[in-house]
C-alpha cells in the first residue's frame, strides 16, 4: 500500500476517535460536581443570581440537548465562549497553542539530545561510565516530580547563576534568542523526565541489536564502530525508541500542564487547569479536544515513521 493511502486511511479512522473523545470530555465535565454558576458568582452568589447565570449559559437544558448544541457549533467552527470573559474559545486557544506546542517540541528536542547519545553509548559499552550515567539519569528523571524539579532549576539556574528568567514567556516576535531563553528552563524540566525513559529504552534496544549476527558481520567487514552504531544499529533499534517517543508525548502534554503553572507560561495546560477549577465548560472541552487531537496526530506521525523505517509494517494495514 502506498504511504499516502496508509495516511488517508489512518486519518479517516481518526473521526470515530474524535467523536468518542468529544462525548467523554463533555460527560466528564458534567460528572464532576460543582456548579459553574456558583463559581462565577463566588461568595456573592444569591439564588436569583445563580438562576440568571444558569439560564444565560444554557445549563438548565437537558444534557443531550447541551451536547448536541455544543457539537453542532463545533462543526461550524464555533467552540463557544469563555463563561467569565465572553472571549471566544478559539481566540483563547489560538493565543495559547503556540506556547504549548513550542514548549513540548523544545522539550522533545532537548530530551533527544540528552537521551540518544547517552543511551547509545550506554548500550554499546555496558557497565562503562556512560552506562552508569544513563542508569542514574533513568532513575532520577523518573522519580523527581516536575513541579519540584522546576522550582529547583529556577533556584539554581535563575536565582543562583542568573542564566535564565525565572518565569514568564517571551514571544518569538520579540526575538528568537529571548524566546528560547524564556522557554529553556520549563522545556528542560519536561525533558529530564522524558529523557529518563528514552535513555533506558535506547540503551536496551541498542544492546539487543548489538548482539545480532549482522552487526558481527559488519565488524568482520571492517567498518568503523561509529558507522556501525549510527548507520546500522540505531536504525534497527529505532522502532522501540520511536514507539516510546509517541507514547511519551502524552506525558509531555500532561507535564506541560504543571510546568506552565510553575513557570507562569500562558499555554493551553494552564488554561485547562484554571478553567477546570472554574467549571468553565466550553474552555475545558475545547482545550481537552485540542490536546487529544495533538496526541492522536503525534501517534499518527509515529506510525508513519514505523512505515518509513520498516516497509513491512505498511503491509500490516493492507
Amino acid at each position: 500500500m502506498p504511504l499516502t493511502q496508509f495516511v488517508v486511511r489512518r486519518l479517516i479512522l481518526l473521526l470515530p476517535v474524535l467523536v468518542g473523545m468529544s462525548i467523554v470530555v463533555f460527560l466528564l465535565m458534567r460528572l464532576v460536581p460543582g456548579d459553574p454558576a456558583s463559581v462565577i458568582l463566588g461568595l456573592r452568589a444569591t439564588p436569583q443570581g445563580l438562576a440568571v447565570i444558569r439560564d444565560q449559559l444554557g445549563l438548565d437544558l437537558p444534557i443531550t440537548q447541551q451536547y448536541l448544541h455544543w457539537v453542532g457549533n463545533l462543526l461550524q467552527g464555533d467552540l463557544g465562549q469563555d463563561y467569565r470573559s465572553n472571549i471566544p474559545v478559539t481566540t483563547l486557544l489560538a493565543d495559547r497553542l503556540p506556547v504549548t506546542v513550542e514548549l513540548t517540541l523544545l522539550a522533545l528536542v532537548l530530551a533527544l539530545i540528552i537521551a540518544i547519545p547517552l543511551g547509545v553509548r550506554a548500550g554499546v559499552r555496558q557497565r562503562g561510565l556512560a552506562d552508569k550515567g544513563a542508569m542514574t539519569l533513568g532513575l532520577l528523571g523518573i522519580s523527581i516530580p516536575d513541579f519540584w524539579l522546576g522550582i529547583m532549576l529556577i533556584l539554581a539556574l535563575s536565582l543562583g547563576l542568573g542564566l535564565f528568567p525565572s518565569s514568564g514567556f517571551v514571544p518569538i516576535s520579540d526575538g528568537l534568542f529571548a524566546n528560547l531563553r524564556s522557554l529553556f528552563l520549563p522545556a528542560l524540566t519536561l525533558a529530564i523526565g522524558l529523557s529518563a525513559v528514552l535513555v533506558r529504552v535506547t540503551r536496551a534496544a541498542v544492546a539487543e541489536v548489538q548482539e545480532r549476527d549482522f552487526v558481527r558481520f559488519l565488524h568482520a567487514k571492517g567498518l568503523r564502530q561509529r558507522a556501525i552504531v549510527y548507520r546500522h544499529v540505531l536504525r534497527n533499534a529505532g522502532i522501540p525508541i520511536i514507539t516510546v517517543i509517541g507514547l511519551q508525548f502524552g506525558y509531555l502534554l500532561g507535564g506541560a500542564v504543571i510546568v506552565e503553572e510553575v513557570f507562569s507560561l500562558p499555554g493551553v495546560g494552564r488554561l485547562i487547569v484554571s478553567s477546570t477549577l472554574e467549571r468553565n465548560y466550553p474552555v475545558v472541552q475545547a482545550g481537552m479536544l485540542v490536546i487529544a487531537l495533538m496526541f492522536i496526530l503525534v501517534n499518527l506521525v509515529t506510525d508513519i515513521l514505523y512505515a518509513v523505517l520498516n516497509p513491512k509494517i505498511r503491509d500490516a494495514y493492507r
Partner: protein
Amino acid sequence: MTLQKDQVKDFVGKYLQGRISRRQLLISLSIVGGTALAQPLLAGAGARVARAQGGTPRRGGTLVAATIDKPVNMDPAFSELYSSMQIYQNVFSRLVNLERDGTFSPNLARAWRQVDDTTWEFDLVDNAWFHNGEPFTANDVRYTFERLADPELGAANLVFFTPLDGVEVVDDTTVRFITEPNWGGLPAALAAFGDIVNQRAIEEHDPRLMPIGTGPFRFVDWVRDDFVELERWDRYFKPEQPYLDRVIFRAISDDTVRLTGLQTGELDWIEQVPLHRVGELREDPEIKANPDGEFFPDLFLLNTAQPPFDRVEVRQALQWALNRDAIAALVWQGQAAPSAGPVSPSNPWYSGPGVYAGGPDLDRARALLAEAGYGDGLQIRFAAQPQVPTQPLVGQLLQQQLAPIGIDLEVQSFESARWFEELASQRYQITSTYWSATADPGEHCVLPLTHSQSPWNFSAFNQSPELDAALDALRFTVDPEARRNAYADVMALQQEQSPAVFQVNFKRTYWTQPNVYGVETLPTLELRMEDVWIDDA
C-alpha cells in the same frame, strides 16, 4: 477666622511632615472646626506621603508587579474577584479614598457634606478626563450608579449600595446622593466599590475587556494568562501624579517563583512571599518589606440551620475552646494577628477584646456543650479546600483544639467549586474563609455575613432579632463616633451569638525592590500605584 486658618495650616503641616497621624490631624481639625478648610491643603496628600517615605518622587520607569491570581473581568460593576480589582482600580478613580488609618480623603470629590438625613452633596473636581477623551462631570457619577442599579445588568456590587435611592446632578461639578435616612456607610462604599465609569466608554467597548476610567493609568494591553499593561495617563487630575510611566501586572501563582522573580530583578513588586520565609526576608537588604496592614480577617462559618451549630451553646463552646494565638503562630507563621473580630487593635474600628477575653477556657466550653446536650461528645465535619493551603491547616489545628472538649472533628477536602456548592447550599457544618472588606468592618463584613436578610448569610443565621436591629442601627448612623459605638454594640451581640467566629487578621505585606517607594497596604486592599515611584539614581 485667621487664627483658625493658621491652626489648620499648622496641623496639616505637622501631618505632612509625619509628626502627627492622620487620625490625630482629623481630631485636631474637628476641634477647631477646620475640616473643610483643610481639604484643599490635603488634596494630593498621597503624593506628599509618598515623598515622606523616600525623598522626592521621581518621574518615569516601568514597574513590573506580580500578583497571585490572574484578572478575569475589568468591569467595576462585577468586581467579584480581587485579582481583577487590583488592576482596574488603577484605571478608574473613586469619589473618595480611604487611607491606612481609616480616614477618608478627597479624590474625584473635592469635598462632601451631609445636607439632610437623606442627602449627601459632593463637590467634584473639574479637571479630570476619561481615557477616551471625555471630560469627567457629575453626569458620569449619575450614570455609574444608575448602571449599577439596572436590574438587567445584574451587577454584583449593587449589594453594597442598596440604601442608595438615586443620584441627582446639580451642575457639572456638584452631585447629590439620595439615600435611605442616615446611611452612614456611603463614603466607605464609594471608596471601596464606587469606581466611576463613562457612558460612551461603556457603550463603545466591552467593559469586561477594556476598562476606561479617569484613573492614573490608561489600559493598554491584556494578554490573557500572561500580563496586563497600563500606561501613565497624562491628563490625570492630580498633575504631579502618577510617577511611573508604565505598570505591568503579571500573575504568578507559586510563592517561591514570585519571590525568585523579585530576587533576580525581573519583578519590582510582589504580593506575598512564602510565609515561613518572612522573618528572614525582612532582614534581607536586597528586598524591601513595605508598610503592611492587618486587613484580611479569617473566620469560621458555622451552619446554624443544622445541628450541632443550631445551638448557641455549641457555638460559644467553640469560642471558649479556640486558641487564636496558636492559629496565628502555626498556620500563619506569625503573619497574622489573633483577633475575635474583623479588625485588629491597631484599627480605629477595634472594639475591644470581646466577650471571650481570657480564653481558651476548656471547662466553660465543656459546661456549655453539656448544657446543649452534647456532654458525651459529638462529631463534626470541617469543609476545607486544599487549594487554599491555610484552610486544611486551620482545620487540623481546630481538630486538636476541640478534641479535649469531646468534639471529634473530621477535616473533609473539597475542590473549590464543590466547596462553594457546600457553602451556598448550606450542607456544610463548619468551614473557614476570609473576607476582604474592612473599609467598613460593620457594614462590609459583619452585616453581609450575619444579617438574617443578607444574601451572604452562609450561616443561615436568624436567631437574633437584636443583632439584626443592631446591624440596621449601625448602617443608618452617620456620625463617626456614634457609628463606632454602634459597631461595638454589633460586635458584642455578634460574639455572643457567634454565627461566624473570627480567628485572625492576616497581615498583607507588599515586597519590592529597595528603590521602589510609595507602596503601602490600604484597608480597601487596593494597589494605589499612583503613589509609587522608582528611584533609579
